[in-house]
Every structure is written in structure tokens, then in C-alpha cells.
């Protein structure tokens, strides 16, 4: 029954403390992406979801597959008890995530995620020298139930854990291991200039030897790579690394 369905949906919305609690929309996907903790997801087009080809192989992965798909595409019409309903809801969320991983590496999906990237929807890199560079969601595995979603910074080329615990329960497979790298292949103009800036720990003004030796070794590796690439005609764009050697800090204290 429609009334039954509405009740369940309302309850769901309350559960997730969604912003759209009063005049919530009846579209499942709108509700899903607006749910707290789902900030990294974009909305999958209806056309994509209704093309069976895009869902190849997912039947085996998702319980109540057809009902879940009906729920996602807002054609769910099945009178069932709350327990089953709950199961179908769960399956629908899982199915949406799995399709999402495929969708965001399509032309349309990349566009949508790029827009979110430009709005800093995925947060900013916590590394000081990345200067709050925007992040992209990434999975460390393409298999579901393996690892939660992580965030990739294209400036330092490293992955970080999301700050908020509500993202720690999102499956990384819903974004996949390839997504950020495909995005930058398709949109090379968004590849940031790399930075040579780095932190050199000091003790009473002096660099510490052990860390400094490692830093020199790393910088040697960097220069080797740059030379290697220069030989094949690739120039690596790196930002200035003029580190002030004798730092002028603390001058106010000098007596």
C-alpha cells in the first residue's frame, strides 16, 4: 500500500536525520544523496539505472535485487512487512553504491563529480603544504565490504581518512580504486601543480639530522625522476621550493 510505503520512508528519513524532514521528496535517489553521511555521492541518472547493461553482474551481489532496483527508480509497489521492507531498503542502498562506482567513471558521472570537487564537497587535504587542496573520494578496493571510503589528494598523491565518523561506515567500493585517476585523465587541466614544499622538523632552531638525511634522500629521488622524465621530453611542473634556510622566525625574541 502506498500509505505503508510512505510511513516507512518517513521513518527512514527520521532515522537518517535528513535535512528534508518536513516536505521530503518522494524520490528515493533525492532522499539518498541528501542523507547525512552521503555527501560524497552524486545522483545517478534515471536513464543509466534503467539500462540493464549498466547493471550487469549485480543481481548476484544484491539481495532482493529487483525490488531494490524498483525502490531506487521509484516504481516500488510491493506490500510487505517491515522486516522485509527494511531488507529491501538495505539492498537498495547497497545496489545504489555499486552502480555509483560504475556511474562516476562515465562521462556524465565524471562531470557531476567534478562539479562536486569544485565545490569542495569532499573536503580539503589535511596536509599543511597542500594548502587546503580539494579531495576526491576513493576506494582502496573494488570489492564491497572490504574497506571504508578514503579521500585522495591529487596534490600530494596520497590518501587520507575522512574526518567525520559518519563517512567511516561508507563502503569504499561505492567509489572504486580508479575514479580519481580517471577523472584527471579525462580532465588533465585539473591536475594541480605539484609542490616541493615540505616540513623540516627543528630542535632549538636546528634541523634534526636523521629526518634531514631522509629528506635529502627523498629529494634526490625526486630529482632523479624529474631528470628521467626530462629525457623523454616531459617537464614536471613543481611549485617553487624556496625554503628560507635561516628562518627569520623568532627575531622578536632575540636579545
Amino acid at each position, binding site marked *: 500500500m502506498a500509505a505503508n510505503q510512505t510511513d516507512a520512508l518517513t521513518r527512514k528519513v527520521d532515522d537518517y536525520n535528513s535535512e528534508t524532514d518536513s516536505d521530503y521528496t518522494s524520490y528515493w535517489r533525492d532522499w539518498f544523496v541528501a542523507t547525512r553521511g552521503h555527501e560524497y555521492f552524486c545522483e545517478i541518472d534515471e536513464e543509466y539505472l534503467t539500462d540493464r547493461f549498466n547493471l550487469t553482474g549485480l543481481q548476484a551481489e544484491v539481495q532482493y535485487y529487483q525490488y531494490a532496483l524498483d525502490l531506487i527508480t521509484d516504481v516500488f509497489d510491493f506490500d510487505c512487512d517491515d522486516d522485509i521492507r527494511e531488507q529491501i531498503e538495505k539492498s537498495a542502498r547497497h545496489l545504489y553504491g555499486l552502480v555509483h562506482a560504475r556511474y562516476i567513471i562515465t562521462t556524465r558521472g565524471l562531470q557531476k563529480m567534478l562539479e562536486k570537487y569544485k565545490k569542495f564537497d569532499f573536503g580539503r587535504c*589535511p*596536509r*599543511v*603544504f597542500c594548502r587546503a587542496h580539494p579531495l576526491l573520494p576513493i576506494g582502496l578496493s573494488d570489492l564491497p565490504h572490504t574497506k571504508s571510503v*578514503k579521500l585522495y589528494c591529487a*596534490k*600530494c*598523491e*596520497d*590518501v*587520507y*581518512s575522512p*574526518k567525520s565518523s559518519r563517512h567511516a561506515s561508507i563502503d569504499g567500493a561505492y567509489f572504486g*580504486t*580508479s575514479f*580519481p*585517476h580517471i577523472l*584527471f*585523465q579525462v580532465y*588533465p587541466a585539473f*591536475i594541480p601543480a*605539484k609542490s616541493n614544499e*615540505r*616540513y623540516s*622538523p*627543528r*630542535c*632549538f*632552531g*636546528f634541523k*634534526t*639530522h*636523521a*629526518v*634531514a*638525511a*631522509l*629528506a*635529502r*634522500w*627523498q629529494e634526490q*629521488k*625526486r630529482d632523479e*625522476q624529474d631528470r628521467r*622524465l626530462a629525457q*623523454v621530453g*616531459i617537464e*614536471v611542473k*613543481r611549485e617553487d621550493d624556496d625554503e628560507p*634556510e*635561516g*628562518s*627569520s*622566525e*623568532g*627575531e*622578536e*625574541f*632575540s*636579545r
Partner: protein
Amino acid sequence: MEEEESWISSYCNVMGHEYFAEVSEDFIEDDFNLTGLGAVVPRYKEALEMILDVEPEDDSESPGSASESLSDNPNAPAYRRSRDHARTALDYSLIEKSAELLYGLIHQRFITSRQGIQVMYEKYLANHFGFCPRVNCQSARVLPCGYSDTPGNDTVKLFCPSCCDIYVPPHSRFQAVDGAYFGTTFPTLFLMTFPELDISGTGRKDVTASSNLNSSGGRKGANNNTLPPINGVPANNIAPGLGKGKRYEMRIYGFRVNERARSGPRMGWLRDKPQDLEELNEMAQLEAEAAMDSGEEAAEEDEDEEEEEEEEEDQEMTYPDGGPGRRRTAKGAAASAVATASTSEVGNGGDSVR
């Protein structure tokens, strides 16, 4: 008289001040520890009185209604409550600002003192500073630090010894905390003081009860393996979060992206580490050779090393390969430090230690 929370503990209990240690009163009452701060902090004397919860001596009985209402408000935190009814509200807020600055600067010195570093060690073990956000650091504990020792330049940052990088604290409430209140020296000195502490994220769980700790605060038997120390640091404590297997490799459909690709990897070096850490020692040897040949730069480097080891001795830190025949007095170290150009703050840092 009712039992009131002290200014110091009240200040440290404010949201966003979680990284601060409570500086002991005897540290503040030792004038030597405050050397030079009078010239930097406006209304220094009153600020110091406020920090120590001392009633001001000179009571010019001018009734300030605003400050009275402030002090009478029982809901106000102790460090905002004034016991001095003579001050006007404006006056009060100026002194309070100065008190916060003064406390921060004393704090910078305190946490690099023998007593203070111990307090910070307890906070470190209690996870007060949080963990590295980098996935490959496996939640290694971080240490608060400043990018500058001068107040007003930058906010507090977090140093991760596992990847030797610094990060922005995860919550915006820390963006109001001046990095100079922690300073540039603290994380390094901390790691030198507790050289046997397992700083990797994986070792974190093991360090629980203090009964498992050895005299220098490290985990008992943590580094009893065969690895010899490199450049004075236990080998398994040299950036345990870096190197082979700890670097993120970009892949598309499971295939590694080639460095020649336009979007290929360019930052691998930042998270790299030689598989054989002896390479780092060899480099030091090469540098020593280069220094013999020519170059002021190399000579300076050499001097840096010396200074560093002297500082260690100054702190009476035990180092497995502390280097023989380098014993000099603290005074000597300070003198030669001052002689080195480009290190204007060394003298100041040294003050705080004694």
C-alpha cells in the same frame, strides 16, 4: 573562601585548548623561565597575576560596575572571572588577552622542559593530540607543533613522526590556537627524549599501561631487535609510515599508472624511504667527504649535527650512539650556537630548558 578552579586549569578546559598542558605554578614562579617575556607581553605583571590567580596589590578603589557584574556571574568560567573589582571591563579584557599570550609563551617553554615534556607524554599516551589522517600511517599518534615560534604567524599544527609531515587539526576550533604556543622544537625534542617509544600506528595499541614502559618512557623491549640506530635514531623509528608498501600507488582498473602519463605519479618521493636505511648513513659519510673537499654549506651541515648532539646532552638524553668525545657544557653549546649565523632563537630556546 569557595574553592575556585584555577585560571590555568580553567583555560586548559576550554574547548579547543585540548592540546595544552597545565603549566605547573612552580615553573611560572621561577623568574628564569620567564626571561624576556616582559618585553613581549603588554601589561605583563597583571597578566602574570591573573594566570597565577594572585590578587593584585595596587587597589585603586574605582568602582567598575561592568567588571563587578562579570565577576559576580557564577556561570562564567574561572579564567574569565575577575577577582579584581577595580578593573573596568575593557581593562579586564585587555589583561585577559595578555594573560592568554603570556600563558602560551610560557607553555612553549614549559613543554620543552623536563617536567613539561613528561606532562605532554602523558597526554600523548592518552590520545589527546589525535592521530595522523594519512591512511598508511595507520592512526599513528601526532604531536602538536607550531610552524613558527613567534605568536601571530600561524595556528597550531600536528606533526606525525610516522610520515614526518604536518597536518591541519581536524576540528576548526583549533584554528583559534596559536602555533607559537607549542613552538617548533617540541615534537623533535619529544621524540629525542623518548627514543624507544614505538611511534608507528601499529605499536600504539601495545603502549597502554605505564608498567610496560622502560625508564625512558619507551615500551619495554620495543627496540630490542637487531637494527642498529641510524644517525642516532632507532632504525624502526625512522618514519615507519614511509617506504615500500606504505606508499599509495595510483592504479586504474588495477594497473599502476605510469609516471610518463600526464596524470602519472610525481610525488612518490615524498612518501619514500630507502629499503636499507644504511643508505642514509652512507649519505652522511659522503657529505662528510664533501665537507672535507670544499663548500661552506657542507661545513655548516656538519656543525648542525654537532649542535644537535650537544642539545641532546643538555637534556641528559641517553643515545645509543651519542658519539664519543663530544662532551661540552651547556654554556659552551649555547655560545657556539649563537656564533652560528641564522639561528637567532637558539639562545632563547636554551633558556627554557634549564
